[in-house]
């Protein structure tokens, strides 16, 4: 289903830090997270290692940035706030958002297992056209996303490639924000 290096690659990339992480996890506020509590289907091989994706992603944010960081991506979040980041080719946009701590509310609720659609992102037309077509399973989930557009994708299924350098991805605007301000208690 996934055509580019997703979590597994991230995991191998950070395998060296897992040892360290395992010991650190004991003391961290995340220590209580039951690792491998609910294993994502089809990911048994790595989840059976007993490390939750959460830890892997966290480890990425704690480690030093790999030297090959070189693709620039601009994120515009639900409030219109723009963040620019430079990332490694091959990682998924979900991993980028988490490791770079981009402020997007509730992004990636299912840890990239195609079960939530909270990683919905809107792409520029020319970038969208150039991307590989979606597999059915991605469209199935995407179709449930709020604020669906013609150039929408699920961020956990899109991997950063060199040619995407400089692209802007947008989180669907939170229309309800404005509506809320005008509602008063009766």
């Amino acid at each position, binding site marked *: 289903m996934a055509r580019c290096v997703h979590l597994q690659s991230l995991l191998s990339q950070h395998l060296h830090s897992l040892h360290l992480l395992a010991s650190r996890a004991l003391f961290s506020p995340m220590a209580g997270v*039951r690792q491998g509590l609910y294993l994502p289907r089809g990911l048994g091989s790595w989840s059976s290692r007993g490390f*939750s994706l*959460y830890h892997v992603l966290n480890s990425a944010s704690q480690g030093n940035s790999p030297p090959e960081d070189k693709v620039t991506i601009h994120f515009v979040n639900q409030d219109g706030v723009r963040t620019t980041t430079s990332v490694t080719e091959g990682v998924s946009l979900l991993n980028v958002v988490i490791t770079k701590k981009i402020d997007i509310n*509730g992004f990636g609720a299912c840890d990239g297992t195609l079960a*939530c659609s909270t990683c919905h992102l809107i792409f520029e037309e020319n970038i969208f056209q150039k991307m590989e077509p979606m597999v059915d399973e991605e469209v*199935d989930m995407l179709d449930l996303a709020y604020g669906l557009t013609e150039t929408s994708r699920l961020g956990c299924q899109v991997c950063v490639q060199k040619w995407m350098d400089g692209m802007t991805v947008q989180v669907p605007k939170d229309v309800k*924000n404005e509506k*809320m301000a005008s509602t008063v208690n009766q």
Partner: protein
Amino acid sequence: MNTSRVFGFKTMKTLLTNRSRATITSGLRRLACTPSSCPRVCIVGGGPAGFYTAQHLLKAHPAMQVDIYERLPIPFGLVRFGVAPDHPEVKNVINTFTQTAQHERCCFHGNVTVGKDVSVEELKQAYHAVVLSYGAEGNRLLGVPGENLSGVYSAKDFVGWYNGLPCNKDLCPDLSHETAVILGQGNVALDVARILLSPLDILTKTDITQPSLEALAASRVRRVLIVGRRGPLQVAFTIKELREMVNLAGTRPDMVPADFKGIAEVLKDLPRPRKRLTELMMKAVREAPSGEGSTSRQWGFRFLRSPVEVLPTPDLTQTAGIRLGINRLEGSGDGARAVATGETEDIECGMVISSIGYQSLPIDPAVPFDPHKAIIPNAVGRVLKTSGLYCSGWVKRGPTGVIATTMNDSFDTARVLIQDIETGILDISTAKPGSQTVTPLLQKRGVNPVSFSDWEKIDAEEMKRGSVVGKPREKLLDVTEMLKTVHS
């Protein structure tokens, strides 16, 4: 500056664990906190709505203290007791909920039934605001004769049974008849159909409860009909769940091709999600093998049929079948209405599962409740005609929407609450005691709240039991046993 002192400071900083650092920071914050800057909010219900509301409140206000009160000794609501056991990936949201529960300004109090053990009024006294996120614990009734016959179950109870909800552990559904009819065509209906028909080797690797696994192993159900009151263009389930049915090993679809007459012509005008869903249904109809195939288990949709009566066996005790009224559609699209033609049709079946929706219930006379919509009347989460009361999740919107929908609406409620603090609508000028008064009150009433680390003991025990039988966990099914594990 003395280098050794610098070194000493650095070392200490490195040695501090994240948790102790967090405690120190929160301690400092608490010291610096004047009553007016230290809002205390409690949330009723530890499901997705409760956790997402808490998450946003904690993020948006640097001094906010949040307590979550949950009826069961176990957190996560329908993520544990609703989401199907063969959908473990959906349950990954628990990772984020756990982070929230372990946040230094958040505290989980399980085993506390609000409205019974403590009243909403008492919570209002102890907190600046109360957020009601207690979901939908009831279910819509069919309202037809025979509804109470043995062999008729609500999907809510059936789901609670296979997912280990303590109050449903003794359901013992009768699986001895070949045909089961499910009323309603939402995702819950498909979950139930899939569990009834799934090959056992799929289920044995999930956290489905052992008693239900054994009952399903002995099940004689071979044919599941999923009945909707409207047409193929009005089904409520989504495509991912339909695809799972289509691909379910050892089963084949049993459809009525005539139901899809005229649908091909309107396909092109449908929005993409509905179009793809309908195309997949039509593919299943086209490719359904005719006659008896090698696969013995079947599932199918029946449209334009409303339940009229559950038919009893001659001794009037058991379910023998269901009488369905035949409808026609008035209007088109999502808003089309089912209108009875007056004709009926009977289907023989030994089991009827009503999956026409969950329903929220009032929990406390102090909270307004709209009996028609079965929700707490609210404007973007502010409970109408009250102050200091908010709501989120299914009890705010009604019992529809996936976890992502619940997440967004919970964030909305949290934003509104923060806005009310900022504008002064919510008065936080006087200090509130929070759980400092509620916990002793509960203890005086013989209620012992379960903390998040208590739940972790239950969690560890369940995973231990699961590993023995090759499952991710073996759920404890009894509240007394859960409490015993906590106190062992």
